């Protein structure tokens, strides 16, 4: 069933379940679908309703931004389906290198390997309805619509696939309604977790019209986004005891965002298609990325580059490049392309979510976000752009216009992908993170996190596919633990 909690339960009700999932986005809905039918009574608590929230509900997501400008409220979706409601559908698993401990990148490294997630990635593709799992785009595009990034180039071509996009709240609503052992409660905002430091005993739920409920269960999963997970965890601090999972003070730290940047333009072969297009088998979008070897040598983060054809420039137009001897591998005309980079940030402890002093209408402290980009990330962009320019020039493929060199000033114009990651990072040891490799909050017996908050490093891929894969993996773990 799916019900408004105000109609389903009496004010002050105390109810018991085996599992309480907090958050009705891609993670929470995936968990609910996976675990339903396993003999557990499951409650899925969604803070919003079935449609866009009104202004009063939206105000609960307001916060203070103290770092780089960030649209805190606009980047979130407070209704059933969560941020899948504004997702663009871009899909790509994280790369092998994204999981690795990179000596040149502080804070990198997952405590699990990509291979451990692969079986779940495969199933995640079905859930987000992506028609192809083939990310080796060389089979799916004509070679004249991408740059010839061979081994000597230090770059390679990669690709994104696309979900329709799947709006989880709409797509799976009817299925969830039909699950007898699942109860979905709408307008149920969890404002606190009752606990004895090791075990969470209850989730306290409030509504805007002043009703209160208590959900008791054997296990709890925080399946909210990368901002609400640390906010809820930080609210669990009692008296002098630290918040759950926060013995090392890392809850809320390492907030990461895929930041975009437009360093300038390329002048190269006409007709490149580094944008979404039908492909031979299924829609895809090629991107250019640095090779792992280049990342290692130049100490770069992972990133991808997209090229959008734009009008030519008079300072160095296509006809100038057509002069014999200057660009022999541009045989039939050149176009100018705007370069858009999607960058992996270095995990940065100074980039963080914390609690402000102001409280929202439910009495919760509003969050404070200090989004910061490490200096090394700016230098890395500079090195990558230089390398791209060198490759194009020496290989006769074109030229680069580096019209917006990175500087501390240009960071003010950085935009994020509305991907909130890293604020409850996964680690083997409690001193290095917030959740363990099974996504259980360190130091607790029964509190788990299913969210991009657990990403210790983010690559450049959109997080939704990985969130769903991690949720499937967590469901697998919980089934095993139950057995």
């Amino acid at each position, binding site marked *: 069933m799916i019900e408004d909690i105000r109609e389903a339960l009496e004010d002050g009700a105390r109810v018991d379940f085996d599992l309480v999932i907090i958050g009705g986005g891609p993670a929470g809905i995936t968990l609910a679908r996976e675990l339903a039918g396993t003999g557990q009574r499951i409650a899925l608590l969604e803070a919003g309703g079935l449609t866009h929230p009104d202004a009063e509900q939206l105000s609960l997501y307001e916060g203070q931004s103290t770092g780089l400008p960030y649209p805190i409220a606009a980047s979130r979706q407070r209704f059933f389906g969560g941020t899948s409601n504004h997702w663009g559908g871009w899909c790509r698993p994280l790369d092998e290198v994204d999981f690795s401990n990179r000596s040149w990148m502080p804070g990198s490294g997952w405590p699990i390997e990509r291979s451990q997630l692969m079986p779940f990635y495969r199933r995640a593709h079905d859930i987000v309805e992506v028609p192809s799992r083939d990310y080796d785009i060389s089979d799916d595009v004509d070679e004249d619509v991408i740059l010839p990034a061979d081994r000597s180039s230090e770059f390679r071509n990669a690709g994104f696939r696309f979900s329709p996009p799947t709006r989880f709240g709409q797509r799976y609503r009817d299925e969830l309604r039909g699950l007898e052992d699942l109860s979905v409660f709408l307008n149920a905002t969890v404002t606190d977790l009752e606990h004895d430091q090791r075990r969470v005993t209850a989730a306290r739920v409030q509504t805007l019209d002043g009703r209160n409920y208590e959900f008791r269960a054997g296990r709890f999963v925080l399946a909210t986004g990368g901002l609400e997970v640390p906010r809820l965890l930080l609210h669990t601090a009692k008296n002098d005891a630290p918040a759950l999972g926060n013995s090392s003070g890392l809850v809320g730290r390492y907030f990461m965002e895929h930041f975009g940047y437009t360093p300038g333009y390329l002048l190269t072969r006409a007709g490149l298609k580094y944008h979404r297009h039908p492909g031979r088998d299924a829609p895809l979008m090629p991107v250019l990325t640095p090779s792992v070897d280049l990342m290692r040598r130049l100490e770069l983060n992972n990133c991808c580059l997209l090229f959008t054809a734009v*009008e030519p420039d008079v300072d*160095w137009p296509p006809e100038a490049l057509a002069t014999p001897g200057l660009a022999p591998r541009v045989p039939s005309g050149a176009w100018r392309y705007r370069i858009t980079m999607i960058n992996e940030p270095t995990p940065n402890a100074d980039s963080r979510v914390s609690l402000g002093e102001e409280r929202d209408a439910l009495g919760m402290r509003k969050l404070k976000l200090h989004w910061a980009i490490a200096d090394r990330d700016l230098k890395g962009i500079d090195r990558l752009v230089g390398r791209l320019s060198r490759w194009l020039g020496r290989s006769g493929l074109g030229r680069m216009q580096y019209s917006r060199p990175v500087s501390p000033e240009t960071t003010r114009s950085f935009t994020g992908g509305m991907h909130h990651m890293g604020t409850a990072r996964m680690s083997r040891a409690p001193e290095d993170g917030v959740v363990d490799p099974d996504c259980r909050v360190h130091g607790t017996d029964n509190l788990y996190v299913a969210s991009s908050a657990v990403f210790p490093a983010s690559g450049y891929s959109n997080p939704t596919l990985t969130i769903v894969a991690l949720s499937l993996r967590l469901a697998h773990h919980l089934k095993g633990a139950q057995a």
Partner: protein
Amino acid sequence: MKRRRFLYLTAGGVAAAGAGAAGGLWLFCPGRDEPLTARRQLHKLAADMQGSARAGRAWLAANSGKEPGGALLQSLGLQPDKLLTFRELLTGLEARVAGDFEQDRLFVHEGWQLSETEARLAALHVALLGPDASEASEPDFESAPEGSLVDVERFTPQSMEAGQTLQGDGVPEGVIWFGTAGVPAPRMRLVIRGRQLTINTTERGFSSRLPEALIGELGDNPGDHELWLYDPVENRKQKLGALAVREAAHKQDGFCAVDRWGPESAAAGETFNTQPDGASAFWIRVPCFPDSTVVTFGGVEVPTTLRPGDGLITTHITDHSIYAEPGEYPVELVDRESGARQMVGTFVVR
């Protein structure tokens, strides 16, 4: 863009084309790649460059007193009087340009990271041609040649009335939509009254949202307004059709008789004339009606769109509960200002 081609006089050359700034006589040179001195081959190449004036002047400004031809010969390791073919020159040039990038011998002009060698070549072009150096020009919609960019199957709206908003069938207010056989590249622009608008592409076509100021401008200028698709990358344009802007109708005080309307019946609870978003819809053909007209269904006011220029009123019913029960429901036009009513007919819910 000025496109002057200067070709060097050789012993076999015949047709004079113009006088080069360096004092040589530039002629069309037929196909054979005759050996020439390195200086002459370089001059031939430099003089023939296109769109390189700005970069060349920038190099000369940054290297005052330096003679680009000599610097170029030196960097290519060529004696001025050495005899070589054009192909041999290009082979050396390609290697040198690649080497410049490999070893960071770059000349940066307005952010363009150029090889020092090609910048010198551009400078030589300017030195040879002076004021006739080849300038690039920005792509220009007005002068762009016409060509085929996309196959348009239909578009909406095709007309609007002055003082009214732009409203097509099944598209949001202020948006014009084109159904096409292929998908145009997202870089293309829709051009109306000289205003270039970005487009949003889908698998079935593309759309563009007109700014309110442009809609107002259209309303102030009744008549046909050409709709163009423009590709600024290839500098080509295609006429897609025209948007007809009609004079504002005089204020209408009463209703004309209803010509036709529909649908007139539906099964209980089932949507009728179903719209893309799942809404049900009536259409009512009536030649005239007040600006403040709304449609009522069984006494309930329903969302109404007025298209006086087309003599058409449409509705968009998302509250499906109003026809959930079988029965007969009067459909009326109501003038909100005067309270006047006009019966349309009776809708039967089976």
